[in-house]
């Protein structure tokens, strides 16, 4: 056990601590970086934007994933196999590739614009890129499997005899869904939402490719600060903020998963 | 014919986990070739005790010796003991043959020897053609037999069994009890058997020990334990016991009880068991089959028997026996259970009949409460 622990300790915990420490020392000791974050407005705006986008993405994912999970939970045999493989293939296709695909679709001369102009829905091409719509759609697309899987796993474990009991007692299908099934699926919803929210916060590729300077998200900003502006102190500070938020969410997620009996499945 | 098998000596073996004592200092001797059972409720320490012999539970004190060898120094894989688990623990990725051959191959026996001994053992458990099958293809009873074969094939001097029949249904259990007993007769080993089912232990064992709360309460042959329990716990654990509370201290063979008797609230108890039964905390124990029921007028008080008045609460018939629950004393008293072979009486007595319960003084056991 000590070998993996040492490995993780040195190469995972260590760097994280190093980041946090650095945020307080680079370029000068003190809270300077954090002060700048709080008061300069730009950084704060990016953080708010990140939080907002993550929220929107999580919400949309939930809305879309829930019905899909519901249908999959009741599916059997070959239909289930096909559905599952589609979800799984989406999950494991590289984020870079998927974001590139959305770039292609949203391009000025891309698929979507071609469709819109040729069917006469719009007069000219719309500039989707860079833009909030493109980022949100892209992220929802990528996060969807991560929302579907925990919810699906939870739904599968719901005892159908409870629904039978409800209908025997006089509840019509809508009611037994609303009063029995839905509450029972909350652990899956929470686990999936926490997971997607956590991942959306730290997301890099899609916002970088599809969003522009006006829609910066934290991870993109950190990369800019580190690589292009060589402002490692600020990068560390932003990373630490992101880290703190993520850790809190992770702990919440663990709580939920434990109460759900560990039913949530992990994504990538 | 002298049986060969390991002789186990345990002295003051104890196990403590931080603050909890799982096993108080316990001593026990098991003779070679014996079939010895440990029984008791869950948490009584019987599995812990078994674990110390197997080597999974390192004792925090005491000595364990098998045939003179101190086991404390040896890890489980060097003790040459066989063990059968409740969930069989057959290796799912190996065939039945490979499972049974596993310990032989570990000991680097030649291919021919392995083949021969495995086949012989499979025949002994009456599964001679099952060698190529996988464990998942066998029924519960068959799996348990394979587990037995595997545990004994390398000739260990001691076989440990941890509630091996717990996962089986009643009929299967009875069938396998017989098989295990027959198996024991065929191999030369001592068996230490753990179960919570007292009937099972009583039918199979030469001797048994009852455990409670980390201690051995009493040990001896099944019959001895049944007829001479040292305390109320043992009495009620084995079979059914009618326990009647005693007021005060019994004196010269007579005990005062709360329940009205024909002898002005006194019961003659000449059978005192164990030290301390003549103290304050004692109780009277009468077995249901010792009691006779009389209807009709009150007879005289006999010198050698005890008599009590009561009313029949419930009467059932089960396979040749009448079982009565008789209310004695006030309604708050526990009813007395009586068991009578149906050949003795032609009609079962209905509810509400007023009866007298009679039983010999010698069947009145005076025992400790705890």
């Amino acid at each position, binding site marked *: 056990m000590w070998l993996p622990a040492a490995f993780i300790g040195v190469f995972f915990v260590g760097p994280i601590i190093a980041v946090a420490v650095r945020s307080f020392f680079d370029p000068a000791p003190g809270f300077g970086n954090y002060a700048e974050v709080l008061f300069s407005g730009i950084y704060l705006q990016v953080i708010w934007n990140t939080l907002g986008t993550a929220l929107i993405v999580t919400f949309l994912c939930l809305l879309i994933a829930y019905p899909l999970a519901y249908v999959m939970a009741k599916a059997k045999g070959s239909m289930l196999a096909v559905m599952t493989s589609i979800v799984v293939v989406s999950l494991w296709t590289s984020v870079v*590739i998927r974001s590139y695909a959305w*770039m292609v*679709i949203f391009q000025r001369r891309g*698929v979507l614009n071609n469709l819109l102009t040729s069917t006469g829905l719009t007069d000219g091409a719309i500039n989707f890129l860079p833009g909030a719509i493109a980022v949100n759609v892209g992220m929802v697309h990528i996060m969807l499997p991560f929302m579907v899987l925990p919810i699906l796993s939870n739904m599968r474990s719901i005892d159908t005899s409870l629904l039978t009991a409800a209908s025997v007692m006089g509840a019509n299908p809508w009611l037994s869904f609303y009063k029995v099934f839905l509450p029972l699926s909350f652990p899956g919803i929470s686990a999936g939402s926490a997971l997607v929210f956590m991942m959306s916060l730290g997301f890099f590729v899609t916002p970088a490719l599809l969003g522009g300077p006006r829609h910066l998200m934290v991870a993109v900003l950190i990369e800019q600060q580190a690589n292009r502006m060589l402002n490692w102190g600020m990068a560390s500070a932003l990373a630490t903020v992101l880290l703190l938020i993520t*850790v809190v969410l992770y702990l919440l997620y663990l709580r939920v998963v434990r109460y759900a009996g560990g039913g949530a499945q992990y994504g990538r | 014919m002298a049986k060969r098998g390991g002789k186990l000596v345990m002295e003051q073996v104890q196990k403590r986990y931080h603050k909890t004592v799982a096993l108080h200092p316990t001593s026990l001797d098991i003779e070679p070739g014996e079939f010895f059972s440990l029984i008791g409720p869950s948490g009584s320490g019987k599995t812990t005790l078994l674990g110390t012999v197997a080597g*999974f539970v390192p004792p925090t004190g005491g000595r364990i010796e098998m045939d003179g060898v101190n086991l404390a120094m040896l890890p489980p894989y060097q003790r040459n003991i066989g063990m059968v688990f409740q969930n069989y623990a057959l290796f799912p990725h190996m065939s039945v043959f490979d499972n049974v051959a596993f310990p032989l191959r570990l000991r680097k026996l030649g291919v021919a020897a392995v083949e021969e001994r495995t086949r012989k053992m499979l025949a002994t458990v009456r599964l001679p053609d099952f060698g190529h099958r996988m464990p998942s293809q066998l029924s519960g009873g068959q799996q348990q037999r394979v587990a037995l074969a595997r*545990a004994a094939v390398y000739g260990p001097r001691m076989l440990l069994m941890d509630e091996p029949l717990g996962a089986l249904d009643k009929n299967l259990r009875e069938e396998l009890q017989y098989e295990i007993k027959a198996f024991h007769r065929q191999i030369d080993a001592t068996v230490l058997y753990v179960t919570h089912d007292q009937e099972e232990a009583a039918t199979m064992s030469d001797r048994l020990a009852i455990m409670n709360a980390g201690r051995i309460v009493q040990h001896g042959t099944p019959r001895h334990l049944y007829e001479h329990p040292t305390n109320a716990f043992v009495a009620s654990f084995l079979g059914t016991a009618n326990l009647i509370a005693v007021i005060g201290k019994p004196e010269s063979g007579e005990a005062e009880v709360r329940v009205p008797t024909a002898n002005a609230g006194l019961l003659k108890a000449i059978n005192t068991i164990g030290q301390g039964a003549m103290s304050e905390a004692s109780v009277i124990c009468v077995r249901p089959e010792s009691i006779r029921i009389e209807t009709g007028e009150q007879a005289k008080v006999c010198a050698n028997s005890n008599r009590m008045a009561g009313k029949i609460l419930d009467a059932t018939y089960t396979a040749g026996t009448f079982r009565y629950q008789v209310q004695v004393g006030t309604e708050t008293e526990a009813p007395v259970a009586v068991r009578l072979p149906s050949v003795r009486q032609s009609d079962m007595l209905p509810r509400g009949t007023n009866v007298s319960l009679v039983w010999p003084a010698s069947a009145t056991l005076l025992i400790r409460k705890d």
Partner: protein
Amino acid sequence: MDADTATWLPIRYRASNKLLVLLAWLILLFLITPQFVIVPLSFSSEAYLSFPPAGWSTKWYGSFANSPDWGRAAINSLAIGLPTALLSMILGTMASLAVSRGGITRQSLVAALMVAPMMLPHIILAIGLYPIMLWFKLLTSYAGVIIAHTVVGIPLVFITVNSALSRHSGSLELAAMTLGAGPWQSFWKVTFPLIRPGILIGGILAFASSFDELMLALFLTGVGTQTLPRLIWLQMNDYLTPTIAAAASLIFLVTLGLLVAVSILQTRSGAEKANAHG
């Protein structure tokens, strides 16, 4: 109880069930389509994907095959992915065994820690590891990024092996010990055969995650050691030629192949595991 086959159910419930299923398929279509946009693009004769495509050509694949950069990136991705998978398998299995069978206190805490690298954004780890790798002089070398990818790969193996371990009770190892097998023998002959599929699946997942990983590769590799995702990313920022689409299609195919391998392994080990996770 299947609501849509119950005949006593009024029409509107049955209809809404059918609508739900239709909706589900639409969503699935949404999920799968974008990936498949890339493939036609990689075959199109011009630089933009139009609908219907203007012409077909394989010139982008040609340019991919001929480019030394792409070739080297592909080799790098392999050279990094395979050792990552191997290391992750070893360390992840060790950790999993220790947590499941080793009687460690606070199991859930250790387990959470072992899984954490998967949950935390890679960017944080990337900028944390950069100075460390700099200090060890491992920057732009294979070793640095292999280590980083292993950190992220261990959780995957940990989870799959855990799942495999939990399906077989610990009494199997106890039984092996009473039969005379020492700890090492008991592991090799009893535990290992049973968790082998789990280890393998975890390893494949670790490889796939390394093959696709961008963030850590971005920071820790250099021009000579860069992986496919890094090259794609750099190219995407400069010029968007469909050569990228060709590269992407190939990566997609590789991923598909890996997934097929995983599902074959899964069905062979027989258990009912949900989706791709071990």
